[in-house]
């Protein structure tokens, strides 16, 4: 569960990125976070992953209070989240299997647990048969599926995807969104930051629109009606 209440964020250079933002995402929801470049979407993601802290207000993510979280608790917060980025952030010299297993290894999972879990997740994202490929041998869509598999492998409660379709063509983008929908149907909360207006409209999910660091609209089953200035 994510609860953001009256949260503001000011960077060290004095730039106010968020101003009294309030929204709440329940377990199992599928939400699009939309807005123009520089509107504050990425700051919200950084706040949810505890890369930055709110200067005021209250941010709760899976029972962790981001404003008061201790440094040593941050890894445990992040284990409840799976984050997917636009640039995939895969390790080039590792295979698909190793990239996904790496995330499990990083939290101290046993070899047996890795052997059991990784094939299941690769099957879920449709990458069976590509286990031994390196990222460079895959298409953009496939690379993003590896990133999603990596985000999913530790069984997080929430998947946060920051512009996941930014580097993909429309067809691959649609496939990816269908995959996120499938993941959501399996019980994982999904929060997707995107610019892809057509995709957002097509899926008809809840849309939170950010404009100039504030929540401009929050409509369940809404549409991406925001026009960039």
């Amino acid at each position: 569960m994510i609860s953001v209440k009256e949260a503001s964020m000011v960077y060290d250079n004095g730039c106010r990125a968020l101003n009294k933002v309030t929204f709440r995402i329940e377990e199992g929801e599928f939400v699009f976070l939309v807005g123009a470049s520089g509107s504050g979407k990425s700051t919200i993601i950084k706040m949810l992953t505890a890369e930055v802290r709110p200067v005021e207000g209250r941010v709760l993510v899976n029972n962790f209070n981001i404003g008061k979280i201790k440094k040593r608790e941050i890894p445990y917060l992040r284990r409840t989240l799976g984050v997917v980025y636009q640039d995939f952030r895969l390790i080039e010299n590792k295979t698909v299997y190793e990239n996904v297993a790496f995330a499990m290894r990083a939290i101290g999972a046993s070899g047996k647990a890795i052997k059991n879990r990784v094939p299941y997740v690769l099957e879920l994202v449709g990458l069976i048969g590509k286990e031994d490929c390196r990222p460079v041998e895959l298409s953009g869509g496939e690379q993003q599926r590896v990133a999603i598999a990596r985000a999913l492998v530790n069984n997080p409660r929430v998947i946060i995807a920051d512009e996941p379709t930014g580097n993909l063509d429309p067809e691959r983008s649609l496939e990816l969104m269908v995959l996120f929908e499938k993941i959501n149907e399996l019980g994982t909360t999904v929060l997707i930051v995107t610019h892809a207006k057509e995709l957002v409209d097509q899926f008809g999910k809840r849309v939170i629109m950010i404009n100039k660091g504030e929540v401009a609209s929050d409509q369940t089953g809404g549409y991406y009606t925001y026009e960039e200035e």
Partner: protein
Amino acid sequence: MKKSSIGYFLKEGFRNIFLHGFMSFAAVSVIVVCLIITGTTALISYDINLNIVKLQNESEIVVYIEDTYTTEEARAMEKTILQVDNVAKAEFEDKDTALEAYREELGENADLLDGFDSSNNPLRDAFHITMKDPSKVAATKAALESVDGIGNAVANEEVVARLIQLQRMFQAISVTLVVALGLISIFIIANTVKLAMLARRREISIQKMVGATNWFIRWPFVIEGLVLGLLAGAIAFGLEWALYEQLSGFILDNLPQFTMAEFQGLMFYVLGIFAGAGVIVGVGGSSLTIRRFMDV
């Protein structure tokens, strides 16, 4: 630390070493050189100390009683002499015994002393003084000379003083080298680990993103520093052994009266100190770098 992770940490630590083979080689080489220089200086200082102690233990002060005193009066001075600070023992040698001893010492040339007997003995009654603390020879000698009835006192203080001076110099060089070369070694290790961390920045950021703890990320780099430090310690130990054998052979050939410790008698200390120094330098150097890289 989870058992299942230990194998991973070791594998990654060794992988880092080979990933930047040249830097690892450079780091080990620099630490080896540093350890050998400081080790050799420390061992020589130790040997000088052995010789100082030996000389001090062998050294005594001989005080000669003024010839206006009869032998009985001279012998009676023992109590006064024993009251002088730092005097442990005072052994009386009357002038007749000294004359006989001298005659024996001269051997074939004893005829030089023909014509001398107790009636015209040119020698004086004396006390052989053993000190409680031989390093205070100068002060003790001065104190004895101020006692009424003592003509003069003789000690081999100059040799001891020079050795002490030499030892102090070696100790100062040792300390300076340990500090300077230790810092250089830490710097080199820090840079080697820094290269490994730079090469793996992306992996570190992904590890942090998926919830790895800082210690999980640190361990392979700590192990890298530890292995490099231990390896350097072991190599330096072997080389130090060979070097010391050569050095002691050379010194004993040229200065047979100089005492040098056997390396075998010191090997476990040297090994322990080299391994310990290697670990401190290795882990210290890697920790310095890791700390700066952890806020990914």
